[in-house]
């Protein structure tokens, strides 16, 4: 089958001739998008103690999500090995929807409980927003991941 022959592990782009590996575009794009973040960290002085290491760490941390984002946008899912042709009809789509809605409920519960607990504290607690937002993000990821795995184990 022609479709089977053109399928690869990382897939190909959905535009152009459709022969270009998606990673060949996503990898340089991720690097190009991540490097300015590293450069910005040096410019604003966050990494004054060691600018080179700071540049590398910031660039690397930003390159991975940028690469993933570009890859998700450009890859043609029909060229991926093992990808279902009708993913919306598969049970994985149902798990995804259920895990999404449940993690939203979890987030409301966690934020609500934390707000109530903070309201009863006698002293004012100031929390750095730079820590709070990643923590909320981590709760979202963890909740979604655990719920999706639970649904998958149930079958």
């Amino acid at each position, binding site marked *: 089958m022609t479709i089977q022959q053109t399928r690869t592990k990382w897939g190909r782009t959905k535009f152009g001739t459709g022969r270009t590996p998606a990673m060949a575009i996503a990898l340089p794009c991720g690097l190009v998008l991540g490097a300015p973040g590293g450069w910005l960290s040096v410019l604003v002085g966050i990494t004054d103690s060691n600018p080179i290491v700071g540049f590398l760490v910031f660039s690397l941390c930003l390159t991975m999500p940028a690469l993933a984002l570009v890859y998700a946008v450009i890859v043609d899912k029909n060229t991926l090995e093992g990808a*279902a042709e009708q993913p*919306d*009809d*598969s*049970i*994985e789509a149902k798990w995804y929807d259920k895990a999404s809605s449940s993690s939203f409920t979890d987030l409301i519960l966690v934020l609500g409980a934390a707000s109530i607990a903070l309201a009863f504290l006698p002293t004012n607690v100031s929390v750095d927003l730079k820590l709070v937002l990643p923590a909320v993000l981590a709760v979202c990821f963890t909740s979604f991941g655990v719920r999706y795995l639970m649904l998958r184990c149930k*079958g």
Partner: protein
Amino acid sequence: MKNLVNESRLRLAWSQQRLADELGVSRQTIISIERGRFDPSLPLAFRISAVFNSTIEELFFPDNQP
């Protein structure tokens, strides 16, 4: 909802992967449908019945139906 997907598939001597490929869904979807843990969407139910050359009513029926 009960179904006769498993019996229909075995009658054709197809593997779960073969049926999944025919329907364009994952093998896990077939496993869950056969176990009665996943009710397929209407378009998928139509495709299943077409693959087995039967009707939706012949393949799927409510739990309380004898």
